[in-house]
């Protein structure tokens, strides 16, 4: 049985990545490259439990995500053009998997915001985010994905 909201989040995002994009997210066994440029997406929810889910990754991983979702090559212009949209959809779908697990009852209602995205362009931003106590890093085909769950 999972014990914490962070564990629920990790299991949810891993499941969505595997189901929709054939990307396996695992606990890192070795040091992963730190992205110097990338994107953070977040989504807020209110209901029996209220909070925020945040995911961060470098451009390489989100282009891989987009290319797998769209069934195109990672260097295809579509994968680059739609990578942020794909990452927003990942946090949206992750929220969809996570919330039923946080609900007390299947009839519980949550209100969810539209996913928000912003880009970062320094390794320092990544390192600061990883250093917080609510951060979990996953190894996605050798690339890092940062996941955070915040209660509000």
């Amino acid at each position, binding site marked *: 049985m999972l014990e914490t909201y962070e564990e629920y989040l990790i299991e949810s995002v891993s499941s*969505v990545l595997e189901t929709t994009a054939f990307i396996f997210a695992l606990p890192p066994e070795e040091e992963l490259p730190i992205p110097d440029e990338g994107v953070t997406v977040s989504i807020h929810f209110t209901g029996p439990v209220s909070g925020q889910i945040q995911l961060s990754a470098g451009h390489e991983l989100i282009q891989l995500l987009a290319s797998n979702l769209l069934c195109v090559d990672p260097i295809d212009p579509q994968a680059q053009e739609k990578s942020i949209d794909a990452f927003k959809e990942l946090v949206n779908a992750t*929220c969809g998997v996570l919330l039923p697990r946080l609900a007390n009852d*299947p009839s519980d*209602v*949550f209100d969810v915001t539209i996913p928000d995205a912003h880009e970062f362009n320094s390794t320092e931003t990544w390192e600061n985010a990883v250093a917080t106590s609510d951060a979990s890093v996953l190894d996605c085909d050798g690339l890092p994905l940062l996941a955070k769950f915040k209660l509000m």
Partner: protein
Amino acid sequence: MSWNILIVDDSAVTRSVLKKTLGMTDIPIDEIYQAANGAKALEVLDEKSIDLILADLNMPVMNGLEMTERIVTNEQTKDIPIIVISTEASTTRIGDLLNKGIKGYIHKPFTPENVRDEILKVTESVRT
């Protein structure tokens, strides 16, 4: 009969995935139209003859719930089957949507097989 299908989702990636998934079904498709929110979808419905709508709920400008209410209360569009494809999992909300007249529901994240099966179920029920 060939189907004109309208995909309504604010995610361009999801619209592309759904379009590809439709190609995996044996439904004879005439045209696939796309809209990024409920308001844009209503514009398409004003101009085109649509036979099936696949719609997200959580969208900017006009969400899928408001769009559904407008479609099912409009004499011109009330018989168009709507399949909602959303992260919504609350049985309360899904029950409300079914009461409003949606014909099918697919939970995100979806697989192409989920989508194909639900579309075939709904289109078969419309055909018969």
